[in-house]
């Protein structure tokens, strides 16, 4: 099954995406954020909390003067270590509450040298978890894609664990722990295991570990490596990426613009944060999942299709710049077609196949129907079935199973079993449909695909002319307008000064050239 599309338009769209990202990359290179710095501290071994249960990484960053921050938190920590010989966490505690000019006298060289072994240890830890994953995957191979992905979201990590294990037994290949509603707006990562989330469960290092352990156990039992995923988004995007790398998560929701558009997070903050978090993901072997589905949950799927494709091109470009190879770029899309639309299924097929052809190496992530799901669980189950059919026919890679109770509650354990059964049944009974059929040339499907591609190209052209930040400000994406200095977390963005040093940026850089295609 191959749609005839104009490869010239595809190539030109990629060129345009590069032109769009260029100036943003330059901006990123000149800036850092509090969350990037906290991520650096965490990777250096600064864990735990200080007074009032505030994470130590936050306390350290808050204790730094604006001027010191501009040089990067690592330098100050290095100075403290150089002077005291303490381990990073102990050194960090020293920094907190010290006078602003404490350890001022330590030469930069000494500070850097003092940190060197800790940087190495940090990178080794990440690389080690990656090697571990590779070994597990080799020993416990997964089923053929589409890889079945389900969410758990009870709010209580221990019920989530029960749910995750049950889902794995029922055929799930990837488990996502959905976050509690407010978390993306928190400017710190909560600590410890948690049992009180709303619409999801807090992302914490302890929770990551609880799930990873449970899934490792069930993976061994099933002889099939079950992946774990969470959200590197919101105000703590880089820190979550750091924690995920260390706790061997396998995927992360990690979009270059989602927070801006859908959480009103400042765009500069987001651009800087996404870059560093993706550098970490690249090294950790974590597959990112982008959030194009969000364009479709509030607006019309037919109308928004070009916006989805345009965003995929932009996400791809940002990802490449952070060193992510295609095999780690899980571009998003969703089956949000109106179930009442005549030939809607054909439209969905067209869009999914288009993405498959344009991004042949990407582990595409296909999201289920949500917007048009209602309390009629019977109808909902059918919409999910056609979604499943579209996914297997167009060979999507990461398949988020739709729940028949989508409009009602976060999934019950039984809902998940039914959803997995749905996917397994449909994908098996129509396993090779995609290999069997060709679309009529000049037909509904092919024309639709061509139209979407042309539309995306037009969007990219406009954005390239205007500039990305200006386009977002003008409401070119998702019909929302965000000003460059508005939104949450802007005060956490700062310009790097000449002394600025992020040891991991340096340490991870070499990996890039080879990895990116």
């Amino acid at each position, binding site marked *: 099954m191959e749609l005839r599309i104009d490869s010239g338009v595809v190539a030109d769209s990629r060129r345009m995406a590069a032109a769009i990202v260029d100036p943003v990359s330059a901006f990123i290179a000149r800036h850092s954020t509090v969350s990037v710095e906290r991520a650096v501290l965490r990777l250096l071994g600064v864990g735990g909390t200080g007074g009032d249960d505030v994470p130590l990484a936050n306390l350290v960053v808050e204790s730094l003067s604006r001027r010191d921050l501009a040089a990067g938190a690592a330098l100050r920590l290095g100075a403290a270590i150089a002077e005291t010989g303490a381990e990073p966490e102990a050194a960090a505690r020293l920094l907190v509450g010290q006078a602003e000019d404490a350890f001022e006298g330590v030469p930069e060289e000494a500070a850097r040298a003092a940190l060197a072994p800790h940087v190495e240890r940090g990178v080794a830890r990440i690389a080690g978890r990656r090697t571990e994953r590779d070994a597990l995957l080799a020993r416990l191979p997964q089923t053929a894609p589409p890889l079945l992905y389900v969410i758990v979201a009870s709010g209580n990590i221990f019920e989530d664990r029960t749910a995750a294990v049950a889902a794995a037994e029922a055929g799930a290949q990837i488990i996502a722990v959905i976050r509690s509603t407010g978390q993306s707006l928190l400017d710190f990562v909560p600590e410890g295991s948690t049992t009180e989330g709303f619409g999801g469960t807090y992302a914490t290092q302890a929770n990551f570990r609880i799930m990873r352990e449970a899934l490792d156990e069930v993976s061994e039992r099933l002889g099939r490596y079950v992946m774990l995923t969470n959200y590197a988004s919101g105000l703590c995007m880089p820190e979550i990426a750091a924690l995920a790398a260390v706790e061997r998560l396998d995927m992360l929701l990690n979009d270059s613009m989602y927070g801006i558009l859908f959480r009103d997070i400042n765009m500069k903050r987001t651009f800087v944060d996404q870059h560093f978090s993706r550098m970490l993901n690249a090294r950790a072997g974590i597959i990112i999942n982008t959030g194009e589905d969000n364009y479709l949950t509030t607006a019309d799927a037919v109308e928004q299709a070009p916006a989805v494709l345009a965003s995929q091109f932009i996400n791809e470009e940002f990802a490449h710049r952070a060193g992510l190879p295609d095999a780690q770029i899980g571009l998003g899309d969703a089956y949000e077609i109106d179930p009442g639309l005549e030939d809607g299924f054909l439209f969905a097929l067209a869009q999914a196949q288009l993405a498959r052809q344009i991004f042949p190496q990407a582990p595409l992530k296909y999201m289920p129907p949500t917007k048009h799901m209602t309390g009629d669980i019977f109808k909902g189950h059918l919409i999910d079935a056609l979604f499943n059919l579209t996914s297997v026919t167009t060979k999507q890679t990461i398949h988020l199973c739709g729940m028949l109770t989508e409009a*009602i509650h976060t999934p019950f354990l039984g809902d998940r079993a039914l959803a997995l059964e749905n996917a397994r049944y449909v994908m098996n009974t129509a396993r090779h449909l995609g290999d069997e059929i060709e679309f009529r040339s000049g037909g509904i499907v092919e024309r639709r695909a061509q139209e979407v591609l042309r539309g995306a190209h037009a969007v990219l052209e406009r954005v390239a002319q205007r500039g990305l930040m200006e386009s977002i400000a003008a409401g070119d994406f998702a019909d929302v307008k965000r000003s460059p200095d508005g939104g949450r977390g802007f005060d956490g963005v700062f310009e790097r000064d000449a002394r600025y040093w992020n040891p991991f940026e340096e340490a991870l850089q070499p990996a890039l050239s080879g990895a990116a295609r």
Partner: protein
Amino acid sequence: MNPVKPYGDTLDDGKVQLSFTLPIEWSEAADEAARQLVAAMGFNDVAVAEGRRIAGGFSFFVVYASTPAAVDVDAIVAPSHAGSALSMDEIDALIRERVGRKLRVAGACIGTDAHTVGIDAILNMKGYKGDYGLERYKEFEVFNLGSQISVERLTEFVREEAIDAVLASQVVTQKGSDIANFTALAELIEAEGLRERVLLIAGGPRMTNLLAAELGYDAGFGRGTVPSDVAAFVAQRFAERVAV
């Protein structure tokens, strides 16, 4: 004591999904009627997820609610019939050694029921789900009378052929037709003075061992039964009879 409640996403949350049709025109008030009805059934936290008109004067509802009811799983009488899972050879051996003669089994779809697939699955050589049917056993003499057999004809056959075990099947259950036919058979067998002599066995997709007991049968077999379940039961009962 091990009380168990339905599990939604948290232990003991008691979550249950319901759906039903009400013979009333849909309106917002109909949703409220559905909510009150489910509350009247004893559920808590009733949420009407869907309510809509499906035809003039009829509305359909999907409801989620929590039940306060629990069941003590420790107190469940295992409804399983076969005391132990025996193989074909073991069953044959049991009959040979303990009964000392072939057991004569007659099966039929009684009444006007023509669903023979179920009873054939138990009796035919080929069997079901990889488990051989009774015809394959050395120690059973099997008579498969087929479908739409009246209870009179079956009873007559039982007498004339000196049958040891009667296997009656009912797949159509509408308006209690299965119960009526099973009851008629049990009564006729009793009236004809054959009850002591035969094992009376009922089967069909809605049959359970408990229901069969209520109907005066020796055993009942439902959904998913395999032939060896039945064979083992018959063999063991006759082995016991001889032992006594």
